[in-house]
């Protein structure tokens, strides 16, 4: 760990959740225009998310809100008698970390990285992989965040992708190694099929088993051993929408970035250092856009999508979704809600 502002260390903070966590309203809170509007919030950690989805969709009085609903389950919620689907543009990104340090494939060459980006049919990915609940990404700042650079996604252009791959000397017969966790395995399968066809090479999907995930994360962050992939599907997020490079770009590409995959990029680090020392908000937004343009031009990642956050919510709960968090101060229930009918 150095003295730079964006360094990172590895910390294992996993702890077992208690069965229930109960929050009660602080009626003395200063922000009375905001809330709290609920008397009590009970987190049910003793219920499996799949079972919870069934309960919110098919019953009343059991579960009122389920987060992290998958696009595959969206229709089930929309067709429910008891629940509705809430969709929010979230500060989330799904991308591919490109291993620029691979020894037997020229992923250090920007032409190869651009070829990978041109091999992705993002429109199909959004439609079929995310049920439409995502936006195609260009860079990692979405249009609804500060510092948006107005970039267009790389075009899906298989001919140009093949040409770039040839020019950069991609080894004959060398398959692309696409790694994924089990959470993004369906997306990896879809990408592998499409990219293989577009690039004219094989794509081997490597699935990291859940029981090996922690060790794989350690290897990624520590950067001691060679990484066993060319591209790793990776979901990341931001804590606010104001200045994404501080948390997103820094983690993904910075010298001290936990998820940097390949040697440090001096020009990027120079931009980031200017960014973190810039105290003028307007100039900082301009730098955000410049940083996002740089990582896009250099194709430092396989840019994929900005997934939306989906929630299943009981029909009598007025939920105010947030782009960066699950906050419940403004959420309220109608008079028809089970807890008010029951006097709970």
């Amino acid at each position: 760990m150095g003295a730079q502002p964006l360094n990172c260390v590895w910390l294992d903070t996993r702890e077992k959740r208690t069965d229930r966590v109960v929050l009660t309203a602080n009626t003395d809170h200063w922000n009375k225009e905001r809330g709290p509007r609920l008397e009590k919030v009970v987190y049910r950690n003793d219920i499996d998310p799949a079972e919870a989805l069934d309960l919110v969709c098919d019953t009343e009085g059991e579960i009122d809100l389920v987060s992290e609903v998958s696009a595959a389950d969206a229709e089930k919620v929309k067709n429910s008698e008891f629940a509705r689907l809430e969709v929010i543009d979230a500060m989330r990104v799904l991308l591919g970390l490109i291993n620029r340090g691979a020894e037997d494939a020229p992923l250090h060459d920007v032409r190869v990285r651009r070829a990978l980006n041109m091999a992705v049919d993002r429109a199909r990915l959004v439609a079929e992989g995310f049920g439409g609940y995502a936006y195609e990404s260009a860079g990692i700042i979405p249009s609804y965040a500060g510092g948006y650079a107005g970039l267009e996604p790389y075009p899906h252009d298989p001919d140009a992708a093949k040409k770039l791959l040839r020019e950069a000397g991609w080894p004959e017969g060398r398959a692309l190694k696409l790694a994924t966790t089990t959470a993004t395995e369906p997306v990896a399968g879809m990408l592998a099929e499409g990219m293989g066809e577009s690039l004219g090479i094989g794509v081997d999907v490597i699935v990291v088993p859940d029981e090996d995930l922690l060790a794989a994360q350690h290897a990624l962050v520590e950067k001691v051993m060679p990484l066993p992939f060319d591209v790793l599907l990776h979901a990341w997020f931001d804590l606010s929408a104001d200045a994404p490079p501080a948390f997103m770009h820094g983690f993904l590409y910075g010298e001290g970035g936990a998820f940097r995959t390949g040697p440090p990029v001096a020009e990027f680090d120079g931009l980031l250092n200017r960014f973190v020392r810039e105290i003028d908000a307007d100039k900082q937004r301009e730098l955000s856009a410049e940083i996002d343009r740089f990582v896009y031009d250099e194709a430092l990642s396989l840019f994929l999508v900005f997934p939306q956050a989906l929630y299943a919510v009981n029909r009598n709960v007025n939920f105010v979704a947030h782009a960066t968090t699950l906050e419940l101060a403004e959420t309220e229930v109608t008079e028809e809600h089970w807890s008010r009918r029951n006097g709970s």
Partner: protein
Amino acid sequence: MAQTVRQGSEEGGQYTPVGTIHVVDPSPLNWLFITWNTMEEPVRTDANGYLVGAAMEESRWIDETTFEVKLRKGIRFQDGEDFDARSFERAFVEVQRWKAPHPPGTSLNFHPDTRLEILDSHTVRMIFPEPDGAILGKFRGFHLPSTRFWDEIGFGYKKLGTGEGHW
């Protein structure tokens, strides 16, 4: 989508909390979301994700390395203690004790040589050794609990004897 209905007895912009909801949140960030639901920070985010003042009412750069924070008056912790510059100072001292207090890593750290000056009961100045353009974002993870929290529980203090990775 259900129509938003004013609930409880709203009197002069105030709400009387009513009702209970049951939530299943499988997000790995659930611990953080609960913290944000229950603790004050200088800033929070609005529904669109943009920073807005919370325990901090306003702020300004005095010069390139001096950041002045006006704290909101009238905040009281759940245990009845009033929030003021001393609360901010205690949290600052506590967070500066650790090398990597925040689980995502050190990007939310204040520079270790940062100094804090209290100007009055609700005004503080942070003096950095170099400009910190990320300070408002860092405030998102700068939790401001009461004295009792620090003395009795702390972030991992009682359970683990350390705050590293548990802010």
